[in-house]
C-alpha cells in the first residue's frame, strides 16, 4: 500500500468507526464493519475521483451495513433517566480539559448516544452525519442516498426529536 492511500484510510477510518458506534453498533461490530468497508473501498479506489465522493461512499456502505445489523436486534434500551443526576449542568465552560471535564464530557456523550438510539434510523443518520460528523448537507444527503431537500426535512425532524429527548439537559445547560 502506498503512503497516499494509507493516509486516505487513516484519515477516514476513525470518523467512520465513531459514526458506526453512534449509530448503535458495539465496539467489536463497529470495528468489523469499518474494516469491511475499507477493504471494499481499497479494492474499488480507482472508481473515486475525489475525497468527498469517497467519504460519502464510505458512510453510505457503513450505514447500510449497520442498519442491516441493527434491524436484526430487539429495540434499543431507553435513554437516560431525566430524573437522575444531570451531567450537563455541571460541565464547566472553561477550555481547560482536565480529568473531571473529560469524565463529564463522556457522560454527556452517553446521554447523546442514548437519545440517538431512540430515533428512527433515518433521522439518527441525519443527525450523526450533519451535527456530529460535520458533513455538509449535500455530502450527508448523498451518503444516505436522498435529495438534499429530503435530507433537510429528516435533519429537522431528527433535531426536534433530539431536542425533546434531551430537554432536561438543555434546560439545565440553559439555566
Amino acid at each position, binding site marked *: *500500500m502506498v503512503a497516499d492511500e*494509507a493516509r486516505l*484510510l*487513516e484519515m477516514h*477510518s*476513525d470518523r467512520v*468507526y*465513531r459514526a458506526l*458506534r*453512534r449509530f448503535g453498533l458495539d*465496539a467489536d461490530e463497529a*470495528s468489523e464493519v*469499518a*474494516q469491511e468497508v*475499507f*477493504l471494499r473501498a*481499497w479494492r474499488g479506489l480507482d472508481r473515486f475521483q475525489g475525497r468527498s465522493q469517497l467519504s460519502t461512499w464510505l458512510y453510505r456502505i457503513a450505514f447500510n451495513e449497520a442498519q442491516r445489523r441493527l434491524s436484526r436486534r430487539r429495540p434499543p434500551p431507553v435513554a437516560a433517566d431525566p430524573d437522575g443526576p444531570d451531567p*450537563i449542568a455541571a*460541565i464547566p465552560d472553561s477550555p481547560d*480539559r482536565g480529568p473531571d471535564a*473529560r469524565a463529564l*464530557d*463522556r457522560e*454527556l*456523550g452517553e446521554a*447523546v*448516544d442514548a437519545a440517538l438510539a431512540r430515533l428512527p434510523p433515518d433521522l439518527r443518520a441525519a*443527525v450523526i452525519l450533519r*451535527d*456530529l*460528523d*460535520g458533513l455538509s*448537507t449535500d455530502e450527508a444527503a448523498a451518503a444516505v442516498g436522498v435529495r438534499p431537500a429530503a435530507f*433537510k426535512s429528516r*435533519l*429537522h425532524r431528527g*433535531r*426536534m426529536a*433530539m*431536542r425533546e429527548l*434531551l*430537554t432536561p*439537559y*438543555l434546560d439545565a*445547560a*440553559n439555566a
Partner: protein
Amino acid sequence: MSRYLDDQLGTILRRRLAHHLSECQECRALLASLQHLLGVLGRAAQAGADEPAPPLAAAVRARLHEHEHEHEHE
C-alpha cells in the same frame, strides 16, 4: 427553523422568519433550544473524537497483505 440555523434560507425567507421571531416568543424559545442542542451535539462530537479508536488502518493493511499473500500462492 433548522434551515435558518444552518444559514440555508434565502434572503426573503430569512427576513420573514427574523420578523416573525421578533414577535413570537414561542418560536424564539424553540430557536434557542435548537441552538443549545447544536452546542451540546458539537461538544459530544468533540468528546467522542478524544476517545481512542481501535487501530483500524493497521488492521485493514494487515488483511490486505494477507489477501495479497494468498493470491501470490494461488
